[in-house]
């Protein structure tokens, strides 16, 4: 709260300064005979509208409304017509007709098809677009309690699937545009104001004007070798001509866990273990009430966000300057799993003269993220909250109990800040231990700073020709500091104190030069674009580890303080530069805005590929036909119809760059030892990788057929697309014959196809004070791997625990990274059933109550070669929908998202740790004797149950992401305080989830590895957040 006060004080001073300045600008040049004045307000909200342009029709004479929405203009005669126009509003014309006061209520412009859409290196009117592009506007992103923009984009657009890798503050997102087009990274190319950026997590909603997602080849091909996963193009807010605006956003939220998962109570757990033949030490005394570890790890966590912007401008100079601060703590870990993010933005443009314009858009951001170990079945904090022994307390009030000493002996037991020893389980061991105690011993997080932006000069030597030179840069640095105290939680979970520091930084710059020529010849409209791009990225890292610490305190948790430093620390690091050189061009043509045609071509040369393979060429063509412009078209309720089609190719370089510098080179690594005849170690240098000079980018080929419809004068718009996209040359580890004598690095061998249907629908209506807006999107995608290395049955995916190897796989004819495991067919009810089964099948020794594992390969034995497809993380279809209603200053919004048919593997149970606690349905649904159930297994089940389809659950969900109610205070009140807008709101974000999944949260991005999608290793759930906020504008 202290911070807010400071902002307010500064704000007032700045505000008065800007107001003075802007008043001077606004009222500088008017003097004619007859004066008309009035107030311009929004017909929807009633708030006054500053900056509305008021022009005498047919002349260049005009003015703009001031801060209070007032204008004053001299007209020549009563016949003059005043034209009121404002971005986002319908222009209105008013005849003067002898009036001296004309007040105007402006209506929102709801003609969606007239929107301007950003395409690569230019923009186009949506009605003449031949490509598949989805857009999100700033207003949809504002006021959502999202920690990042990616999260705010979830569910907004058809064909764009965004799943959080974790619900913890600052975690990343798994983004797929039109399905998983790669076995590796599916991340799209991100561009902010023309500059490539690694991601957009550092952007705050206040900075964003709009986001376009270029989905088909026709739109993405202009980005050639980097466009195969789609392109996310962010345009930041610019100042507008008119009086300056000051806007302040404040949001405060309270986050809580939102999960139905319950684990077994102490009594259930003891009973279950007894049935399983798992017993405690006889001397252990159980508490009367067990510890609910699930409740222990969760806590209420606050978050707050402030954003302050100044914007405005004259006809020649426009500015937008602002900053934000976000502070979010985690519902698990609190401050230990938190993010602080700060950002500053400075956008300015200036018309130098009649042929040159410069613009500069820069931002600076800083992250401070603390994180805990999560989504790991090997002792992650969230996983431990599920599996930890309920008989163990968080801390012991009276010293270490005797049974713990008897079990483990005198050890390095640790205490909390009050000197109470952390609870130690004698039963749950291995990597799993007291998650609260563990968090207290582990410390760390990262700091990242980031400067990004671009400066562009655009010159207009002749009419219709614009030549732009744009130089952009990103400079980022990253510092990760991890250290831990020593601990003993059990025999296998004991570690010494250590520290690990990593510095990395990168400097990317991009220089682009392009010319665009627009010409209208009668009914022929032509735009030609040609350009070059040069992109360089220089990055390096240095990391050091040290063990142990002189004293496990934060001040000594640095490498300098490690005792006997020369011996006890080590370091790694490297630094590399990659460059990309590109040439591109585009022809866009239309005849009467009726027949539309566009073609693009891009050539990319990359330094990460070998010389012979360096250049790639990526073409696209697209066409459209606006049927509704034909004479034969008679307008009924449908007023607009456009059919469009596109084809094109794109590359994906990210998989190659992710493979690392020198991925195509044969390399040698010196780092192992061999003992000579006197027992000294000699270092050896071994060739570790074969050369692959043929290494090249993944290439996608995509065809799209689309339909854009407008009904009821465009109040209802529908866009539908059907696409099929094949990505070939996926990067996999090569499998050369062994006699070649060395392992291969990456080779291009793999193909995946995505076919899908996307529908976006919007309906907007305004009736008097009542305005409503409905939007809906639908996506259905079929994903299938269509080729894998013929030497392998499948490409191995991720493992779960120590026994479930390649639980996901890429295999021809299956969805990419589908789930593999044992297929079950009910539960053995009695010994006779077991005996009958064992006549045909060996390899394991089941008991009644165990699942019947199907010998799918019919070889008479149960081995992992019996693994078959048991699920898929990909949804059959997904929907998103928003309903917005505005009425007299009140606004109400519901936003919901659903994903259907995707499956989840409950991966936090471990075959090798049968003593771990489990979700309570393991107890309540269990087989307890013949006939009790045929769907869930007994206590003490054979471990194969944990690598079977029984661990696969329907992960479908429907989440009401936001329910928000806002109120705009009436201008009549605000005017007196000099405020142009004050909106207060309350919001329930992620409050309602409907799912059958019995884990914490069905939304499981898994990790940053694509092959872990849908695997719940104890994933950090997305919190529900109660938000209050306000928006204040001057």
């Amino acid at each position: 709260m202290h911070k807010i006060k400071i902002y307010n004080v500064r704000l007032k001073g700045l505000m008065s300064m800007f107001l003075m300045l802007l008043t001077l600008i606004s009222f500088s040049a008017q003097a004619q005979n007859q004066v008309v004045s009035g107030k311009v307000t929004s017909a929807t909200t009633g708030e006054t509208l500053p900056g509305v342009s008021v022009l005498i029709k047919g002349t260049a004479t005009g003015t703009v409304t001031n801060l209070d929405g007032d204008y004053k203009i001299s007209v020549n005669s009563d016949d003059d017509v005043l034209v009121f126009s404002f971005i986002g509003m319908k222009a209105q014309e008013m005849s003067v007709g002898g009036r001296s006061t004309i007040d105007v209520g402006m209506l929102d412009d709801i003609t969606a098809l007239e929107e301007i859409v950003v395409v690569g290196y230019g923009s186009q009117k949506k009605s003449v677009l031949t490509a598949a592009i989805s857009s999100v506007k700033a207003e949809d992103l504002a006021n959502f309690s999202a920690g990042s923009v990616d999260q705010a984009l979830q569910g907004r657009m058809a064909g764009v699937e965004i799943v959080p890798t974790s619900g913890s503050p600052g975690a990343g997102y798994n983004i797929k545009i039109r399905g998983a087009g790669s076995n590796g990274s599916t991340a799209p190319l991100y561009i902010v104001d023309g500059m490539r950026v690694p991601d957009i997590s550092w952007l705050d909603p206040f900075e964003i004007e709009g986001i376009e997602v270029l989905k088909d080849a026709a739109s993405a091909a202009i980005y050639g070798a980097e466009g195969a996963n789609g392109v996310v193009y962010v345009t930041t807010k610019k100042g507008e001509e008119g009086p300056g605006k000051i806007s302040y956003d404040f949001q405060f939220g309270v986050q809580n866990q939102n999960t139905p998962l319950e684990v077994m109570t102490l009594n259930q757990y003891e009973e279950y273990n007894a049935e399983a033949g798992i017993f405690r030490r006889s001397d252990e005394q159980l508490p009367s009430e067990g510890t609910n570890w699930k409740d222990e790890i969760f806590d209420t966590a606050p978050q707050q966000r402030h954003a302050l912007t100044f914007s405005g401008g004259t006809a020649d100079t426009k500015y937008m300057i602002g900053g934000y601060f976000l502070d979010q703590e985690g519902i698990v870990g609190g401050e230990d799993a938190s993010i602080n993010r700060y950002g500053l933005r400075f956008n300015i443009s200036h018309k130098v003269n009649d042929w040159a314009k410069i613009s500069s858009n820069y931002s600076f951001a800083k992250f401070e993220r603390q994180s805990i170990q999560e989504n790991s079945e090997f002792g992650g904090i969230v996983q431990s909250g599920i599996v930890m022994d309920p008989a163990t307390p968080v801390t012991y009030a009276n010293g270490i109990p005797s049974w713990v000493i008897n079990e483990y002996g005198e050890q390095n037991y640790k205490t909390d800040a009050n000197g109470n020893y952390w609870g130690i389980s004698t039963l749950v061991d291995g990597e799993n231990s007291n998650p609260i105690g563990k968090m207290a011993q582990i410390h760390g997080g990262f700091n990242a700073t980031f400067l990004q932006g671009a400066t562009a000069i655009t010159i207009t030597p002749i009419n219709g020709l614009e030549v732009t030179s744009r130089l952009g840069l990103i400079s980022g640095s990253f510092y990760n500091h991890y250290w831990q105290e020593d601990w003993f939680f059990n025999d296998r979970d004991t570690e010494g104190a250590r520290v690990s520091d990593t510095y990395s930084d990168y400097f990317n710059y991009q220089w682009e030069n392009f010319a665009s020529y627009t010409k209208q010849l009668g009914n022929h409209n032509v735009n030609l674009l040609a350009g070059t791009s040069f992109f360089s990225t220089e990055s390096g890292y240095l990391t050091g580890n040290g063990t142990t610490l002189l004293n496990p305190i934060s001040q000594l948790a640095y490498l300098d303080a490690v005792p006997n430093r020369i011996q006890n620390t080590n370091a790694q690091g490297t630094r590399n530069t990659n460059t990309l050189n590109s040439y591109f061009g585009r022809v866009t043509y239309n005849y009467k805005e009726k027949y539309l045609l566009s073609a693009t071509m891009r050539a990319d040369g990359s330094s990460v590929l070998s010389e012979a393979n360096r250049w790639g060429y990526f073409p696209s063509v697209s066409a459209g036909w606006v049927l509704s412009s034909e004479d034969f078209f008679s307008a009924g309720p449908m007023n607009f119809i456009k059919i469009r089609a596109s084809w094109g190719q794109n590359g994906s370089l990210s998989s190659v760059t992710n493979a690392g510098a020198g991925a195509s080179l044969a390399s040698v690594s010196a780092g192992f030892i061999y003992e000579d005849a006197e027992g000294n170690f000699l270092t050896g240098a071994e060739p570790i990788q074969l050369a692959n000079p043929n290494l090249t980018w993944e290439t996608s080929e995509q065809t799209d057929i689309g339909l854009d419809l407008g009904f009821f004068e465009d109040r209802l718009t529908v866009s539908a697309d059907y696409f099929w996209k094949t990505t070939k040359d996926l990067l996999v580890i090569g499998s050369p014959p062994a006699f070649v004598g060395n392992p291969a690095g990456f080779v291009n061998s793999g193909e995946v196809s995505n076919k899908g249907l996307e529908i976006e629908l919007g309906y907007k209506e305004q009736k008097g004070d009542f305005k409503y807006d409905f939007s809906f999107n639908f996506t259905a995608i079929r994903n299938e791997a269509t080729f894998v290395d013929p030497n392998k049955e499948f490409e191995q995916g991720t493992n779960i625990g120590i026994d479930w190897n390649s639980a996901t796989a890429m295999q021809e004819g299956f969805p990419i990274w589908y789930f593999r495991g044992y297929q079950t067919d009910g539960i053995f009810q009695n010994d006779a059933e077991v005996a009958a089964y064992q006549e045909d099948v060996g390899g394991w020794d089941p008991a009644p109550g165990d699942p019947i594992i199907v010998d799918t390969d019919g070889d008479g034995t149960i081995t992992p070669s019996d693994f078959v497809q048991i699920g898929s993380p990909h949804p059959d279809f997904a929907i998103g929908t928003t309903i917005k209603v505005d009425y007299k200053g009140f606004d109400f919004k519901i936003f919901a998202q659903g994903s259907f048919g995707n499956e989840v593997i409950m991966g936090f149970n471990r075959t090798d740790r049968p003593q771990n606690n489990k979700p309570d349905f393991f107890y309540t649904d269990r087989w307890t004797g013949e006939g009790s159930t045929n769907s869930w297994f007994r206590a003490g089940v054979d471990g194969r149950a944990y690598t079977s389809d029984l661990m696969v659950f329907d992960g479908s969900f429907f989440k009401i992401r936001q329910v928000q109610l806002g109120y705009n205070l009436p201008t009549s009140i605000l005017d007196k305080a000099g405020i142009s807008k004050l909106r207060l709101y309350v919001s329930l974000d992620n409050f309602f989830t409907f799912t059958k999944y019995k884990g914490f949260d069905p939304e499981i991005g898994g990790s940053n590895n694509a092959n872990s999608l849908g695997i719940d290793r104890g994933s950090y759930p997305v919190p529900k957040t109660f938000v209050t906020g306000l928006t204040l504008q001057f």
Partner: protein
Amino acid sequence: MKKKIAILGVASALVAVVLAACSDQLEQDVNGVSSIETFYATDDDAQLAIVATYDMLTADNLFDWASPTLIKTLPSDEGTAGGGGSTDQPRYQALDNFTWDSANPAVQATWQVNYYGIFRANMIIENLEPENDLRKRIIGEAKALRAYFYMELVTQFGDIPLILKGLEPTEFNQSRVAKAQIYEQIEADLTDAVSVLPHKSEYSAADQFRASKGTANTLLGKVLLYQGEYADAAAAFEKVTGYSLVENYADVFKDSEEFGSESVLEASFSSKVPYDWNYPWGTRFENNLHVQLMGARAGSTPELGLIAGWGFNYPSEKLWDAFNDMGDTERRDATMFSEAQYLTYKSTDPDFDGSTWWDYNRYFRLKYGSFDAETNQDGAPKELNYGTNWRLIRYSDVLLLKAEAYAMDNQPGPAQEALNEVRRRAGLADITPTGNALMAAIRQERFVELAFEGHRYFDLIRWGRSVAEAELGVQVSPTFTGGDPAHYGDNFDFDKHQVFPIPISDIAAATNMTQNDGY
């Protein structure tokens, strides 16, 4: 208008500058990665590279459990696979039972490890300029090692691809060449190696692990012997000088005799790393984990210096009998001990019951045993840190090969001399057989002298169908009621089992490859 032209001019000049500036920016150095093109340039590089080639001699776990030494031992009549049961390490069980197939991971691994060694040697031979004596010697070592690896492959697989350089991806689809061509290449490499390598005595104490003139001459004699060129083989063996048998047979396998007077080539393992239970499976370990795998599972036997192992590779009764038939207790007691002996140490062990042990023959192995003295003494888990070296070529092997070469060349005198040199060390009297009896004596001598050292099985194959079938194609009646009911002589098919199958993965990856008969 002039202004517009000027602006256009500036714009086009800008574009021209950009095009020029960017076109040569695509050549970027790759840092932090040592590429093969820039390596193999200095003396230091050469030293680092040859160490990596030796390291393939110890790659017993690079591809999971697959010891090139144990793989050659399991099919023989020296012993059985053992382990925890019929499904414990199925790859090893199959090698014991003559049920191996082209997908056997251990067979695949021995193929792979030897070709990996060849690749490393090839890189040195291909890329290192022999501009000084050190580099010449290292190239000689690489050639000797390449010959060793090829000798292993040609013996175990027959016709195989002959790879002498780093292959481009377009050259991956190789075909097999006839054994004779492989032998020819081995001879050529060894002839070169002999000419540049020093005698073992000329190497420093630390460098005793390196291939020497003696190593090369031994391998040369062996490859000639395998081709039936007996006189030339004998001549090559005669050049293996400067070695002597260790006085006491039991000492040969002790740590003190590693790289000792009898050592011609060894795979060097270390007990010093020290590994803990977070074991880096599937990598190149410095220790010899197979010693633990093959250790007696009966529990520790401190009286013999043994700690408990994991129970693989039990000796056969046939081997026990072979020692006894020769009256050879010295080598027998250094090689194995019986259950009866064990029970004298463990008479108080009420839990001992071998009756259910898989593949157990009532004998335990001592050669390459899990000796406490051979493992880590500094607190690391002893099970995981044996430093025991595989003795790949011993001088007694050289003597017996020499005896064989002379015997086959109808020179019984020098053959007897070499044979008796080996017998004398074991405390056995000289013998003077001739003709078939001489070869029979040499064969039996190799059986007992070199037991569990990876020679026996392919010796039997080399000695021909009748010998192999007589020794291997016998359904040994169970000596013991528990465990494995029989050894698998019935499964032995000389035509098929005289070589291993070409790994299925390589046949899949290279369509020009063909399979050995019977697989």
